[in-house]
């Protein structure tokens, strides 16, 4: 009996210990349960996308999207060319208007009071109105007298500005004369400048207008196919409800209830739209569409011919060169769409491989779209990986150096101080670090990027406060305690005998550290870096708050400065979107698929860390 009791106790503890295995399995099971249906659902959606004809429109629409990019480049080429000519007059105009706004803002309260008093019916006592007017006048005068005026104006002009500004009042509707003069001067300048670059501007306008007719036609087609798609979606929703009702009717015991349910099911019965019939008019216009495309391609090729090859400022020359380089590719892509349209078939089945490819290699994650949702995984993965790499690149040298210093050089008093502080970092909740990124680090980096003598650094000055670099810095801080303590353990485990031998051979402390201790601890350090990487990739709150949440593959073309672009991540997308989608939808399942991938990555990183330790473990001496 006693023996049995012992066995029972033992198996009680054993079963508790197995909980970790069970939980790990359950995580897999539940992720699969919610996410596994994704491929099926997405396949179904893509089938409708094809059958309804949305895909046909996208065949044109997708290459056409480059037009936006190219025309914005041209517009920038125009503005950068004109800019040097008009810059000074514009700056003077803007500065004057800015002063006016400042003065008006600082005198809001009396101005508002006067305006409201004037609107009153019956009219207020004139004495009272006068008092209000005097108040406005005196405050405005005071503000005008003290307003800071930029050095763009001569002393004479400053005096004039102050004089005219001091007369501002809500009752005076016309502009102060100086402002009108400045505006007029700017207009003249602008016109002159534009005349100088007529050729460039005309080519740019030509290019901008080129796709108008194609776009118009495309949007007609889009309307048609979208109608079919929406009808299909509605049908499937109703059908699903109907199936549920039928099921309920099957198990219902009450006869009347059963009849009611059946009747309700019958009432919600609808027809699946006839895709072929709906698509027929669209397909009929296929040739017309092709004509428009050819026309568009021809007209931009024409426009390109008249487009000057160089500008007067380097920036413009660069932009023009880019346009000259990319435009033929764009034309080519448009012409390629001609054959694609011709060969396109609505009935071609969507293979499961296409669906898997669309998820794992898809370059767009587009949800809640009125057109079509796409669940492409690449932009998220790219964001996660870039941020993690930034974090590791920052954290590795810092934490390894700190581990070496603490383990080998620091005095006991320093150790007493360093170790608890670094341990403490682990206790800072990630949401607090994310908040620091929003409230402090973002501004810090942005301000720093605007320092003139740092402007040579890639990506400076930066556009966005919240970006991958910002998130990477904070994640580096999060990874440091893990990496530091694991690396320090590894250094600690280096046998004293190695150090003795090195010392006895007359090596200096530094030589001993870098030639014997660090190499001997290298596998442990490598594992520390890998585990740090795992921690960084899985981190959610910092990237959700700080990475900028722009779903796009980072534009690596801009050089190393791409790290200052915003991005979205695997973890962030789940945290951000899961709360807002309905269970069982393709979007819900897609988010669980992302979860499955994250889970797999974490297992992989863990496995690699273990393998590294095992592979490079020094044989026991």
């Amino acid at each position, binding site marked *: 009996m006693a023996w049995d009791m012992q066995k029972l106790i033992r198996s009680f503890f054993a079963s508790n210990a197995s909980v970790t295995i069970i939980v790990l399995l359950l995580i897999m099971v539940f992720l699969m349960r919610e996410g596994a249906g994704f491929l099926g659902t997405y396949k179904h959606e893509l089938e409708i996308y094809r059958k309804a004809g949305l895909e046909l429109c996208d065949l044109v629409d997708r290459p056409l999207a480059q037009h936006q990019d190219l025309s914005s480049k041209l517009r920038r080429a125009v503005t950068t060319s004109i800019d040097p000519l008009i810059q000074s007059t514009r700056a003077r105009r803007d500065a004057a208007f800015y002063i006016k706004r400042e003065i008006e803002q600082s005198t809001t309260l009396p101005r508002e009071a006067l305006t409201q008093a004037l609107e009153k019916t019956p009219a207020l006592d004139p004495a009272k109105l006068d008092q209000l007017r005097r108040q406005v006048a005196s405050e405005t005068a005071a503000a005008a007298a003290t307003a800071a005026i930029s050095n763009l104006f001569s002393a004479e002009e400053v005096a004039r500005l102050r004089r005219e500004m001091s007369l501002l009042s809500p009752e005076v509707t016309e502009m102060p004369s100086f402002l009108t003069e400045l505006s007029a001067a700017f207009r003249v300048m602008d016109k002159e400048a534009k005349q100088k670059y007529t050729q460039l501007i005309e080519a740019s306008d030509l290019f901008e207008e080129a796709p108008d007719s194609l776009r118009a036609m495309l949007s007609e087609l889009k309307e048609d196919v979208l109608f079919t798609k929406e009808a299909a979606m509605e049908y499937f929703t109703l059908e699903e409800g109907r199936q549920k009702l039928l099921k309920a009717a099957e198990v219902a015991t009450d006869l009347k209830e059963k009849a009611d349910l059946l009747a309700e099911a019958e009432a919600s019965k609808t027809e699946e739209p006839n895709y072929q019939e709906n698509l027929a008019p669209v397909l009929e216009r296929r040739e017309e569409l092709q004509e428009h495309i050819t026309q568009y391609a021809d007209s931009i090729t024409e426009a390109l011919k008249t487009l000057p090859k160089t500008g007067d400022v380097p920036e413009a020359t660069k932009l023009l060169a880019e346009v000259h380089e990319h435009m033929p590719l764009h034309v080519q892509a448009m012409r390629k769409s001609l054959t694609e349209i011709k060969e396109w078939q609505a009935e071609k089945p969507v293979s499961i491989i296409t669906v898997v490819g669309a998820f794992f290699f898809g370059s767009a994650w587009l949800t809640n779209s009125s057109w079509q949702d796409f669940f492409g995984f690449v932009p998220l993965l790219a964001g996660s990986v870039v941020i993690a790499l930034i974090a590791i690149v920052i954290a590795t040298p810092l934490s390894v150096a700190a581990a070496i210093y603490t383990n080998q050089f620091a005095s006991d008093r320093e150790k007493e101080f360093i170790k608890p502080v670094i341990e403490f970092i682990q206790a800072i909740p990630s949401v607090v670090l994310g908040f620091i990124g929003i409230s402090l680090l973002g501004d810090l980096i942005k301000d720093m990027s605007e320092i003139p003598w740092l402007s040579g650094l890639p990506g400076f000055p930066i556009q966005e406060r919240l970006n991958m670099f910002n998130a990477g810095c904070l994640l580096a801080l999060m990874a440091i305690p893990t990496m530091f303590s694991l690396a320090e353990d590894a250094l600690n485990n280096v*046998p004293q*005998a*190695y150090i*003795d*031998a*090195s*010392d*006895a*051979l*007359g*090596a*200096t402390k530094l*030589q001993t550290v870098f*030639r*014997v201790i660090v*190499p*001997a601890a290298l596998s442990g350090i490598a594992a520390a870096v890998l585990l740090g990487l795992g921690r960084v990739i899985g981190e959610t709150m910092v990237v959700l708050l700080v990475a900028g949440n722009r779903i796009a593959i980072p534009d690596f073309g801009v050089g190393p400065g791409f790290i200052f672009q915003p991005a979205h991540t695997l973890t962030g997308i789940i945290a951000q979107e899961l709360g807002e989608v309905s269970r069982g939808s393709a979007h819900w399942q897609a988010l669980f698929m992302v979860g499955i991938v994250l889970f797999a990555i974490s297992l992989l990183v863990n496995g690699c860390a273990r393998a590294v330790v095992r592979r490079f473990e*020094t*044989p*026991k*001496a």
Partner: protein
Amino acid sequence: MSNPSSSPATSAPIVEIRDMDFSYGSKIALHDIQLAVERRRVTALIGPSGCGKSTLLRCINRMNDRVPSARVTRGAVLVKGKNIHDEDVDLTQLRKQVGMVFQKSNPFPKSIYENVAYGLRVHGENNVEVLDDAVERALRSAALWDELKDRLQAHALGLSGGQQQRLCIARAIATQPDVLLMDEPCSALDPIATLKIEELIHQFARDFSVIIVTHNMQQAVRVSDYTAFLHLGKLIEFSPTELMFERPKEKLTESYLRGTFS
């Protein structure tokens, strides 16, 4: 107490210890040590466990410096006539010229070649030919060359225990030191490996001075020219080995050598 002047002195001693006291904090570990080690001879340090023989050995290349409270409180250690605690002594240079082999073999987790070359590398030698040459010479001296010449890039920790210890010896002599300190180099080895190392020690006496700590008195007889007997931190007797083992001067020595030591 033996009189140091009674020890035979043909030329200037390579290591000379004068009236040295050594203590760990307030605990005195060595007291009033007088010792003059001759060039190109093997000197054995014997004595019961805890008598301070290893500490004495470690005084000669200042390996005790690392222990925070340990220091020489009186007297001096002279190597090649130079007080090694002088300000202008570069510790790395001292240790380059006073090599050391430890009780347990401790090759680095590197290749055989890198182990032997390590001492030269840390002293700034990067010329591959010089290194190749030195490695070969050191391995030959340690009687390892024939066994290992084909696998110099193999991992040192893959060698047998005896080979590892000989590799450590090769590493220590690669920098061509004048003095080689050996701290019970055979205590972890089997008799055959021990024999090989003892042979090496004999050969070494042609080129450098060897100071060996051993707890094995037969070994002291086999390898050493002179023997110093320490007891409780004091040098009891120091004389030519044969003389000491045949006719010990001190009672304490005699009882230790006879094994009637209590």
